């Protein structure tokens, strides 16, 4: 692999990692602050992608579909929290897993009824439809670069929200001690509902902006869910910063796992076993740091 190809692969890895971060951040946020394991997170990603597809058809423009989709997904998040999730805070993780797994089935059935089982695609908006030539053979779609930029901006906004605003302070307080925060006069129910809605909106937004590059199909949520859990576990459960670091690492491991050739004792390890690369990486990280890369110290 020459230097130039290596740099392009590096770009591929970072770009994939940033998108992973966007999906995984909502998952780690909900777990870190509310202590809820949300298996249905992937479904929100899928719902986002289908929203982007159906809204941009009905409203005629991706740019109108995007804010509409965000509003709808925030509303969906609030509704779900009020209907189901709020009953889970004091229950053990098995019950949370059971309920959110049920949500996966419900969403996949609803998706089938509402939108069918077809594969769809969302057109890249005209403004970002071009490509930048990198080599004589290869060009890079502008949309993918824009995608990375949006992810970086969102990561910055989230960091600012959590570390430097009053709402962020309340969120952090609620995460470390629910009762104490409540007794200080903060309405924890509203706070949790907002955090859950934020998590849902992040996943749905990731699905929406990924839709033009990833096509829209029934099983897309489950695919992304597994990688997200890997990211969250490696990053340290509940840590947004950790999720960022882990997502970038996973993006790179996945990318180079597919193209680097590794032989051990005459046996080709990579790229033959590329499908395992991120899981092996997770195992190594967990052997080294059992609680993940960056773990929030609560106690």
């Amino acid at each position: 692999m020459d230097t130039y190809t290596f740099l392009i692969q590096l770009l591929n890895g970072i770009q994939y990692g940033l998108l992973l971060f966007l999906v995984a951040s909502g998952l780690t946020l909900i777990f870190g602050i509310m202590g809820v394991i949300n298996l249905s997170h992937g479904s929100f990603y899928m719902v986002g992608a289908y929203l982007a597809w159906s809204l941009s058809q009905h409203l005629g423009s991706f740019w109108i579909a995007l804010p509409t989709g965000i509003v709808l997904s925030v509303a969906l998040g609030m509704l779900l929290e009020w209907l189901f999730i709020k009953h889970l805070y004091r229950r053990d993780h098995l019950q949370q897993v059971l309920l959110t797994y049920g949500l996966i089935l419900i969403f996949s059935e609803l998706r089938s009824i509402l939108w069918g089982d077809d594969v769809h695609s969302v057109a890249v908006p005209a403004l970002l439809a071009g490509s930048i030539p990198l080599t004589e053979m290869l060009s890079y779609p502008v949309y993918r670069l824009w995608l990375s930029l949006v992810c970086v901006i969102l990561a910055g906004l989230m960091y600012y929200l959590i570390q430097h605003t009053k709402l962020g302070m309340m969120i952090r307080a609620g995460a470390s001690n629910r009762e104490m925060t409540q007794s200080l006069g903060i309405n924890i129910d509203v706070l949790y509902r907002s955090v859950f809605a934020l998590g849902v909106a992040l996943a749905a937004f990731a699905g929406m902006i990924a839709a033009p590059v990833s096509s829209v199909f029934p099983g897309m949520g489950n695919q992304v869910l597994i990688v997200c859990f890997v990211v969250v576990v490696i990053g340290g459960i509940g840590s947004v910063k950790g999720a960022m670091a882990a997502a970038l690492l996973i993006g790179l491991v996945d990318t180079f796992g597919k193209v680097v050739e590794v032989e051990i004792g005459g046996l080709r390890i990579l790229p033959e076993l590329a499908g395992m690369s991120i899981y092996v990486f997770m195992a190594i990280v967990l052997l080294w740091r059992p609680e993940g890369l960056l773990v929030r110290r609560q106690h």
Partner: protein
Amino acid sequence: MTKPRPELTARREFLIGAGALAGMSLMPLAGCAKSDKLRVGLMLPYTGTYAQLGVAIENGFRLALADQDGKLGGREVEYFKVDDESNPAKATDNANEIITRDKVDVLIGTVHSGVAMGMIKVAREAGTLVLIPNAGANAATGELCSPNIFRTSFSNWQPTHPLGKVMVENGHKKAVFITWNYGAGQQAAESFSEGYTAAGGSVAKQMFVPFPNVEFQALLTEIAAIKPDAVACFFAGGGAVKFVKDYAAAGLKDKIPLYGSGFLTEGVLGAQGEAAEGLLTTLHYADSLDTPQNRAFRTAYLDAYSAQADVYAVQGYDTALLLQKALEQTGGDIGKRDAVIAAMEGAVIDSPRGQWTMSRAHNPIQDFYLRRVENGDNKVVGVAWKALEDPARGCNM
């Protein structure tokens, strides 16, 4: 309108059930061997990713029977359906259920190759007559071939095999093959390099993407670095849409021609849009085949189901045609096992896809068409390979 109270309906149903049960226990005395309905089992995916394929196959099957008032060889048909969910883990149980509990005369299934393998194992032991309307696992008509197992679709070896010849004829002598790293993908890759090498091409590299991962960017970058004359691939469904769009977005489409087995553009052309224009693929069917059979079939299908027929519907349709041929020979008696099998082995099917016959290992010997995507439609360019027969490796029948 008043609804009957639920507990009353339940009781009534129970009584009807009890009555039916009592009636059934008398039936063997009456002797019902031939006047009985033909028991047809449909083991197909009705939920999950392949749900549409299952529905299309069943629709095609029923359409073929529509001319005979829904009868097969003059006998009424009773359907027993099981949703296999394309879940290989449940394949054995599902097959057992439909074979031993429902005691079907013939089992039609399925779409997913992994599920088909589990099903075949059960059917081989039970000796049930099986017709496979899609699953391409080579072994089904290879090392696991059996007198009671027939396939009306294709083997995974078939669709990618003719690609190599076409590519070399177009002057592309060095190619990369890319697919998912799973059973069907590996079988497609093997058959491609076999056909390509035989035609005088050389495979620069085979790339396998972990299944069902759809992040192709890294491999597209590598393809650009290798600079082959052409790229051939095997993808289907959501992955096919994404690969074709990514390939075009990376600017490779105009520089390195992309070929594929026909599944690349089946049922997903709308989603692929502009990115698919000009793609060359090989398959045993094309919507635009201009034959009287295909035109009639497509019109009838559209009338019956208000949907466009696809290759899966054709395979379901042909499954019924094959069964019909066999039962006509035996006057509707499926119990004459040897005669039924002999009739199916010798059958010549006038299908919407063109005429085909059964190979020694019970897999279709059929023409493969070269299709080019033009204005969102798979246009037939010509016949890529006349009467292609699967080598049926490992079959001792």
